[in-house]
């Protein structure tokens, strides 16, 4: 065994405060780095959102301002968008209703003209103008609410225009309530919260976000569970049933009567 020198022993021995010092250094380093990182991140998001708003403003000026005005204050051709909120933009542009293809009784659904990033940018710009309904958190769009409450709320609040099964219906002067099958939950929510076109606004006092989620739940239930009775003939009620029995029921039986009374050749 080699003899251990006092120097070696000294050099091998840690200072009693070394651990504490190391801890302090470590904490300072990570804390500092974290602080540095977070401040730079905040700066980045601010920059990003500023950039988003700026980009949204540009998109707005290029695509929307001819009707809504450069400051979105509205013109004769289109309403003011001050205070409509990000959700209104998300609904109108996200369903393709805006920009409108042609002026008519109401804006029609058509293929969406922008990417979701562009829509978000415009929504951010419009939301900057004045406070308004924002895009709701995911938990109100999940469609995991109570379908029975949703169905009842739907019958009371929505069915007179949209039909009990969400098949749509007529309004005055060529306007109509569209069918609701296949509509994205965020757009269903957006329509309720912002009241696009002829639709009334159902704000959070009227229908709470949870109730809106219940309605979404019901609509998704109807969509995902086809009629147990067979083909639903458009869920339009007795009119399509009447047409069907006259054309296919009675028509088919008349064909049978002609067959039965045909002279054999």
């Amino acid at each position: 065994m080699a003899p251990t020198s006092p120097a070696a022993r000294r050099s091998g021995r840690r200072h009693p405060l070394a651990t504490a010092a190391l801890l302090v250094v470590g904490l300072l380093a990570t804390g500092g780095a974290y602080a540095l990182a977070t401040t730079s991140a905040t700066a980045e998001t601010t920059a990003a959102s500023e950039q988003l708003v700026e980009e949204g403003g540009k998109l707005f000026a290029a695509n929307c301002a001819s009707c809504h005005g450069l400051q979105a204050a509205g013109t004769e051709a289109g309403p003011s968008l001050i205070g409509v909120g990000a959700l209104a933009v998300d609904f109108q542009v996200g369903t393709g209703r805006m920009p409108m293809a042609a002026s008519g009784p109401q804006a029609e659904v058509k293929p969406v003209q922008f990417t979701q990033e562009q829509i978000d940018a415009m929504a951010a710009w419009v939301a900057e103008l004045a406070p308004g309904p924002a895009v709701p958190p995911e938990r109100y769009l999940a469609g995991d609410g109570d379908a029975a409450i949703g169905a009842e709320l739907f019958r009371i609040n929505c069915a007179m225009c949209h039909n009990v099964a969400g098949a749509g219906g007529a309004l005055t002067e060529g306007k109509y309530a569209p069918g609701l099958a296949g509509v994205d939950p965020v757009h269903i929510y957006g329509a309720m919260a912002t009241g696009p076109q002829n639709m009334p606004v159902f704000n959070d006092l009227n229908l709470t976000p949870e109730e809106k989620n219940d309605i979404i739940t019901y609509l998704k239930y109807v969509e995902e569970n086809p009629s147990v009775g067979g083909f639903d003939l458009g869920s339009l009620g007795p009119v399509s049933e009447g047409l069907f029995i006259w054309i296919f029921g009675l028509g088919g039986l008349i064909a049978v009567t002609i067959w039965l009374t045909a002279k054999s050749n």
Partner: protein
Amino acid sequence: MRFTGWAANYIDERTSASTAVKALGRKIFPDHWSFMLGEVALYSFVVILLSGTFLTFFFDPSMTEVEYEGSYVPLQGIPMSVAYHSSLDISFEIRGGLLMRQVHHWAALLFVASIGLHMLRVFFTGAFRKPRELNWVIGFLLFVLAMALGFTGYSLPDDLLSGNGLRIIDGMIKAVPVAGAWISYLLFGDEFPGTDIIPRLYVLHILLLPAILVALIGAHMVLLIVNKHTQFAGPGRTNDNVVGAPVMPVFAAKAGGFFFLVFGVIVLIASLFTINPIWNYGPYDPSPVSAGTQPDWYIGFADGALRLIPPHLETVIFGYTWSWNVLIPLVGLLVFLAAAALYPFLEAWVTGDKREHHIAERPRNNPTRTAIGAAGVTFYAGLWAAASSDLIATHFRLSIEGVIHALQFVTVVGPFIAYFITKRVCLALMRKDREIALHGYESGRIVRLPGGEYIEVHEQLDDFERWKLVSYEEYQPLMVRPDARGRITARQRVRAGLSRWFFEDRIAPVTQKELESQRH
């Protein structure tokens, strides 16, 4: 074999059934596809009776409120009447229940539709003429009863749609001046909707109305046998005979087979296509009304009348509100139905024709009647289409106001246009028939004559074909004649005027002489 012989003998000795079987079995029914429409109605009624009996085993018409505990998720925990709950149970819990419900409802729609078409066939071929006027009236009553049965049945599930329908009926009743509110309370037993209406309608739907309907069907059949069936003119078919197949065995076999075909078509439709998805509508609640709320098709004309009448037609007299916007459609429809019921008597009076008719007319050979029928169909169709005005607007991308105004035009002016067009078309067709009977039909064979001229060869019809074109009756307008006291009454003048309107424009049938002179 020995057993059947013994059994037949046993029954015959005790019931004298053989006389009836002999008489009925030799009954002749003529063959034409349009003569089978009434059969469609009869057979779909049998289907309704069978499926309806199944439904009564499980349906409970009580309006007691309960909470839904069935398997349809979007209704769980919702308070509703027992009637609606049991309808949902039939649809979701009872084996075969939904199929039976759909068979019942589809068969009901087919029942009324085939009655309607059967009535049109009888009307347009003049098969309601003497001696069949009473059977026409019985048939008309069957049509009205079918509508009443349909409506009471539509109301039974006590879902939103049926409640909305009852609300309209309640509104129409309340529009009746003075007595309206009293009648409404009598019917509903309370302020609408009350808790009595569903059990009451149930009794009407499964007891009273079907009993009357079955009795009238019996009378309709007996009169059909007594009067014999009409037939279209043809060689060997005269006003005094019936040419066709005897009931035993040909017609019975054919009709029996046809019954199963009708049954099959109904079950096929019912198994593939949803009808009245009551679970979508939810329990009745007076506040919501769904878009696309319509009655079943046969009540559509009444709904359409309410949609077409201009709004705000109301006057207040001595504190009573007269809702003309409800009363005018109500009275108008009653007049329309009464005119349909009484048409055979009106026509008999106008034509003064007291003979028996067993030959069905081709519609073109009675242009005025056919034109009146077309006008009636147009009027009905305008009202009918109006019941779906909202769906027409959305599906054809029109404004609902435009649809309503267009249908108002169709309903009011359309019948006149239809009348004139149909009458002209009938007369033109009669002229064409006359032309073909006399000069033959264009054979499509072009011949060049030695002189260079081209002609198309016309070929004569054979006697069987020609018969159909020339054998119809010719009517003359009635002359105004003084009565026994030497006076011409106003009644006479009206009748002569109507008769002139009926028969003034006519094409005389080809006479034997004309035919012979054509045969060079």
